[in-house]
Structures are given as structure tokens and as C-alpha cells.
């Protein structure tokens, strides 16, 4: 792929620009304001990067033209049942996330949960999350994390959330002109490997996309990053590139993942990759600790490293805007 640029948001707010022709006569700016403790904003607008202040950008989204058509929130890694020092009260922080969602000036149309709903796949943990999320009064679309399929190959997850899904729980739907695809990459993992989609799911994906116009914005969501973030810690998907190869023809693709309990972004041609914070506990930056386990931060700092992601689709401007907000 030509002109591949990667940027990972840091406290210093580094921004790189990607002037990339993708063959679809689309050229624009990707706006990115890396976070300074409280949130990040990136706007992909017709393929070109721009940068503005968070507040200014939020204001411009509510333009009088009424171009905003769709808004949704991503939450991830609620790990219900976790009770170790990194966060002894994951109920409270999930409730804080719900309060954050309910307080959004533009109420979302629905919520995506990108997995690790529970810590240990118990019915009680699933029930608790369901109860807490009820107060959003929004439909929630789930994909499983590896913590949700611990002892039964995902049977309980599919019973609750995957009744209309295919295979291990993958599915797609259309909403306001955007095509959404939920993928499962936490099943049948191979020794020494990374996340795994499998040939059956990849075939389904190819068929599913065959019926979608290339001008349709596509949002793909799955638990483990579909791009290789840090393979030493298992932060990637072995056959993720095969999935992405089916998405090359589309003008606007947004890939939303969880699993790594921190926000990261990368833009590669027509694809914007984004990972969300956990609502439960943070994990270290790649390679910055001996292992990827839960990271203990001072208790008064915890909610600054947990959060939600608010995504807005502006049809008239052909843009998907992602705003990460901490729970602090």
C-alpha cells in the first residue's frame, strides 16, 4: 500500500499527515488531536488529515446544515467480575461510562461493545453488565472477547447475544447508510499465534461485502486488534490482513477494536484503525512492562485511563469522527 503512515497518539499530541491517493478520487485531510489526558479527536474527511481543537471540532459537527446522520458509542473490556488492585470496583467504572454516554450532548443511536464483557464468562457477570447497560436505553451490539468464551467455546455468549449471528457469532447490519460488521477473532486460537478469524468467517466476510456498494462507509468491529499492534503480547490477528484485503475497494473503512485497554490509532490508505479504552483497568503501552497484565495506577488517576469512544458519521462530509473521552 502506498504512502502508509502510522501515528499513535501520545501525550505530546504528535500528528502526521497522510496525503494518500486511493484510486477513488478521494483526497482530503484526517484531523487528529491527540489526547492530553482527557480525550482525542480524529476526523477522517475524504481521506485527508486536519487538526483542530477538540471543542471547536465538536461545535462544527452540529452545523446548521444538519449533516450528522449517525452517532454511536464504542465501549470495551468491562471485565465484569475483575476485583484486583488495578480496579477493585469495575461495576462503578462501568456505571461511570454509562453516565458519560447518557450525558452526551448528541445521544448515540446505539452502542457497540467490543468484548471482554465479563472477566470469567459466568452468567452472573453477563447479567450484571446487562443490568448496568439497560439504563442507556440503547441497543447494544456485542462481539466476544476471549474472557467471554472461557469454558464453553462461546455457547453462553451466543445464547445471549448471537442468536441472529453466523458461526461463532459474526454478523453484519446496515444503519443510516453505514455497513457494520461484527467479527469474532477469539476462538480456536493456535498455540504460539495471535487472534484468529478462520477460513469460514473470512469466506462469509467476502460474501457479505460482495453485496455492499464501494461508496458505502464500512465499520468493522472485533475484540482483538485486526492490525498488528504488538505481536509479542499477542496484540494482533493472524489472518487480519486477509480480512482487510476484502475491504480495499471501499472508500471509507473504520476498524474498531478493544483488548489492549488503551487508545491507539493508525491510518493505512482508506482504513482507519482505532482501539478503545477499557471501562475496567488499563494495560501498559506495548513493551513498557514485563507483560500485558492489568496496570495499577494511583486510585485518583484510574478514571483518567478508562473511557469510551464516541463516533459520529457525517454523511454530507463523508466523515467518521472518533472522540475518545476518559471517565475522569
Amino acid at each position, binding site marked *: 500500500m502506498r504512502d502508509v503512515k502510522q501515528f499513535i497518539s501520545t501525550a505530546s499530541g504528535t500528528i502526521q499527515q497522510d496525503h494518500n491517493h486511493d484510486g477513488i478520487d478521494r483526497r482530503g485531510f484526517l484531523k487528529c488531536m491527540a489526547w492530553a489526558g482527557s480525550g482525542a479527536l480524529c476526523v477522517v474527511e475524504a481521506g485527508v488529515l486536519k487538526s483542530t481543537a477538540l471543542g471547536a471540532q465538536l461545535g462544527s459537527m452540529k452545523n446548521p446544515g444538519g449533516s450528522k446522520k449517525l452517532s454511536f458509542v464504542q465501549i470495551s473490556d468491562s471485565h465484569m467480575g475483575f476485583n484486583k488492585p488495578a480496579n477493585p470496583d469495575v461495576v462503578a467504572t462501568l456505571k461511570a461510562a454509562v453516565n458519560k454516554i447518557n450525558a452526551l450532548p448528541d445521544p448515540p443511536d446505539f452502542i457497540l461493545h467490543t468484548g471482554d464483557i465479563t472477566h470469567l464468562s459466568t452468567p452472573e457477570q453477563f447479567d450484571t453488565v446487562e443490568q448496568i447497560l439497560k439504563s442507556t436505553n440503547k441497543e447494544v451490539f456485542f462481539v466476544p472477547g476471549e*474472557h467471554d468464551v*472461557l469454558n464453553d467455546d462461546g455457547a453462553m455468549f451466543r445464547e445471549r447475544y448471537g442468536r441472529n449471528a453466523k458461526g461463532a457469532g459474526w454478523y453484519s447490519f446496515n444503519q443510516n447508510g453505514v455497513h457494520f460488521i461484527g467479527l469474532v477473532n477469539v476462538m480456536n486460537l493456535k*498455540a504460539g499465534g495471535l487472534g484468529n478469524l478462520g477460513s469460514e468467517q473470512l469466506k462469509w466476510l467476502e460474501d457479505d461485502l460482495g453485496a455492499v456498494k464501494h461508496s458505502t462507509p464500512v465499520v468493522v468491529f472485533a475484540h482483538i486488534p485486526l492490525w498488528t499492534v504488538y505481536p*509479542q503480547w499477542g496484540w494482533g490477528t493472524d489472518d487480519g490482513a486477509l480480512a482487510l484485503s476484502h475491504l480495499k475497494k471501499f472508500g471509507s473503512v473504520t476498524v474498531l477494536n478493544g483488548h489492549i485497554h488503551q487508545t491507539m490509532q493508525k491510518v493505512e490508505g482508506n482504513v482507519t484503525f482505532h482501539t478503545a479504552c477499557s471501562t475496567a483497568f488499563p494495560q501498559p503501552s506495548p513493551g513498557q512492562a514485563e507483560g500485558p497484565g492489568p496496570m495499577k495506577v494511583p486510585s485518583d488517576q484510574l478514571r483518567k485511563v478508562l473511557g469510551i469512544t464516541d463516533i459520529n458519521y457525517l454523511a454530507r462530509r463523508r466523515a467518521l469522527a472518533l472522540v475518545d473521552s476518559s471517565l475522569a
Partner: protein
Amino acid sequence: MLRPHSLLATILGLALILAVVLRPSGASSQTATQAIEIKVDNFTFSPAVVTVAENSTITWTNKDDVPHVIASTDGAFRSKGLDTDDHYSFKFTRPGTYSYYCSIHPKMTGKIIVQ
């Protein structure tokens, strides 16, 4: 008719067999069964490679803040999700090399060699 020196040889032979069978256990470490502990800590098995005698029992203990699943690559054994401080034991009754991993963190791998 058994000749006297043949009888002596037979008796000596039996004594030798008894000596081998009844020798003190401390001298038979190559063949005695063992109970081995493997710590699961910081997303690694330690020790990662263990060699034991037939009929030895391996016990894994999870010391991480996240669950792990002990699973052999060929399906010979598989634990439930082990929360912090949970144990899982398996008795290896046949010689062979058993590769295993954590089925939810597949970068974690280990090997049990049963002799």
C-alpha cells in the same frame, strides 16, 4: 537334575533381581513418579519445559490477575478457566512430549516431556 552351580546361579540371580526391585527409593530418581509445580505468572509458564517420569502429576497454579486456560495442543488435556490462585493438575500416564499453551493467550506455550 539341577546341578549345584546352576542352583547357585539361580539363587544369585534372584537375589540380584530382588536387590534391584527393593533398592532404596532415593536411588531411583530416574524412574520414580513426581509431583511437579508449574507457576503461571506474568503470562509465562515457569518452568516452561519440564521432564518427568511416567505417572507423574503436574500442577499449574495461576499467579496472574487474569485467567488462563491450560490446554494441550493435541487435546489430551484442558483446564477450565483458572482465576488467580486456581490450580489445575494432570497425571501423565504415557511417555511422550506434550506441547501445551494458554488457549486464550496463545503466545504462552510450554512443554512436558514424559520419559
